[in-house]
């Protein structure tokens, strides 16, 4: 038993709107379910992989709020005899979607879940005070179900390179002289080294070289941040430029939802359906690389 992608959808902030990560997640999740022709109640599992949430909330898991908003077995009283929905967050930055895909593949593979959705969105939690926040407000969702054939995800590879952990860091710290009347405030800061992208490509190549040996990859679904990561990686791997889906302008540079933006573009252009072997790969802070192969 494997897992196959049923649908993907993205959302982005419209001009003059202030949609935060939750709204972006809700919109993407609803659109994705519509495309997959499923009701929200059909979901067994909902994982949120978005990193930068509204007001930086640490509790509860954003996934549970999305579950409530989209009406996926919100549950009180629980209808015993029906199935409910379990939701939680995976916190792994740019690799959150692929880490979640591995978990979905596990739960669907074991038969515990039959239908799952991964949602990811980022928006600046504090636009007036954050430093170096550089991701566009974009959300994405992907619905994954079980398949009895050979199609779907296989060969997940996840590796970390802690020697490069300092190349990308994000933190919330107390600035005692900031804020109103200099009384102090919490500040979100992202620090990225100039050679971060180059090192991401190096590490990713090391992980996926072995994975794709002897396989002709015709589609590359990759992180969209840094912006030239996917193109540089394709070049390094010797993949043709056409193997990289063309992501719409408003989704370029999207963070946790980046691979979903590429996936949506590949589905809409027919590239995913035509691809014999797709390589999904995300890379981010850590440095962490999470990759898998996908057969259509």
């Amino acid at each position, binding site marked *: 038993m494997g897992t196959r992608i049923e649908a993907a959808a993205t959302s982005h902030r419209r001009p003059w709107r202030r949609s935060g990560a939750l709204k972006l997640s809700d919109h993407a999740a609803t659109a994705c379910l519509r495309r997959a022709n499923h009701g929200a109640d059909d979901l067994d599992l*909902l994982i949120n992989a978005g990193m930068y949430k509204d007001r930086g909330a640490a509790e509860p898991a954003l996934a549970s709020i999305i579950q*409530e908003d989209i009406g996926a077995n919100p549950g009180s009283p*629980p209808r015993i005899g029906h199935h*409910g929905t*379990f939701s939680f967050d995976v*916190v*792994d930055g740019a690799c959150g979607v692929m880490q979640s895909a591995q978990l979905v593949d596990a739960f669907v593979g074991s038969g515990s879940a039959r239908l799952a959705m991964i949602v990811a969105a980022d928006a600046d939690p504090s636009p007036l005070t954050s430093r170096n926040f550089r991701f566009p407000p974009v959300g994405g969702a992907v619905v994954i179900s079980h398949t009895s054939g050979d199609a779907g995800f296989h060969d997940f590879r996840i590796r*970390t390179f802690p020697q490069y952990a300092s190349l990308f860091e994000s933190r919330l710290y107390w600035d005692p002289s900031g804020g109103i009347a200099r009384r102090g405030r919490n500040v979100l800061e992202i620090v990225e080294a100039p050679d971060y992208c180059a090192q991401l490509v190096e590490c990713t190549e090391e992980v996926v070289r072995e994975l794709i040996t002897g396989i002709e990859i015709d589609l590359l679904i990759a992180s969209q941040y840094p912006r030239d990561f996917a193109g540089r990686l394709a070049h390094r791997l010797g993949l043709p430029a056409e193997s990289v889906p063309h992501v719409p302008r408003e989704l370029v540079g999207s963070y946790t939802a980046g691979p979903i933006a590429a996936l949506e573009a590949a589905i809409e252009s027919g590239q995913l359906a035509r691809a014999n072997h797709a390589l999904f790969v995300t890379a981010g802070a850590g440095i962490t690389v999470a990759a898998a192969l996908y057969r259509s």
Partner: protein
Amino acid sequence: MTPWMLAETTRRGNAPFSARFESVGVQLPEKHVTTHDLMASTRHHTRIDLEHLTGIREHRMAGPDESSLSLAIGAARDCLARSNYTGADLDMVINASITRYVDGSIHRYEPPLSLSIKEAIGASAATSFDVSNACAGMLTGVFILNDFIRRGAIRRGMVVSGEKITGLGTNAAKDIRSLLSLQLASLTLGDAGAAVIVDRAPPEHAGIVLAGFTTLAEHSRLCVGLPAWHAPGARMFTRARKIHEVAMEDGPPIVEDILAAGGTNLGEIDWLIPHQTSVRAIRSGEKELAKRMGERPKHVVVTVDEYGNTASTTLFLALHRYLTDKKFHPGDKIMLLSVASGLEVGVVVFVMDEWEATHGHTH
């Protein structure tokens, strides 16, 4: 019949292996703070007898040199010291903390804390990631490991969490005026680190016989924790009474349903270890479960009186304490029950084996 929970039971028979708890470790800060002292620190005169209301006598409070990360690493090392394994043997490391302090008041988003933890314990080759599921985080991690081990995808893994969370109480103490304050629950919190290794059970051992989770998302906004805007750290706003009502109303049928799916019942449970929020909440939960099911577990574990609510670590702190006190016997059936903001309800039932019961002391 499908249980309401996303569930894995040994009855399903589609998994080649079963998983078990191999060892449990904790890290507790040295500093003790009584509830009396904590209430004396509130800015306003509240007349609230929090110790009487919750049964919590004292809490542990991390010092300035301690962090979520250091508590997690300390617990992970303690866990390995009681284990047959070294860090290099671990296939997966999952960090599940709500708080992510790495140094003083610096809360780290990226890279994930699991990366630093696995490096600190020599588990470099392990797959690692963080999950966030409020106080149900560690049990969520166990749920994930159980699945991977049962399928044979991995042999063993660690779930770890460090909670430096008493800062919420420090911030709440400035605002609380009455029992109606949404920040009152922040004064019940305590700091702690906990870690647990889950591995493939030897063939003759039952290990984890049941694991299930669900989210009653209709109540997702009843407890929210977020960075404070005018003070270091965070704040938590909890509609505690409402959460308690929902847990009392919706918890028992879900628990009954999942136990039935696993072919067991509450009367067969030797020890129930519930999430530790307050002694009073645990006692009324016990009563509601008994009312619904007509039977009781033989014992209900309470450690919140001594440690406070240590967020995602409570279940494993309690498990560790009772293992250390040699309360369990081989063959005891133990049920871990998480009720956390979300509203998350998680259940893991396992059979204590000899190794666990000695808590590594024969190692």
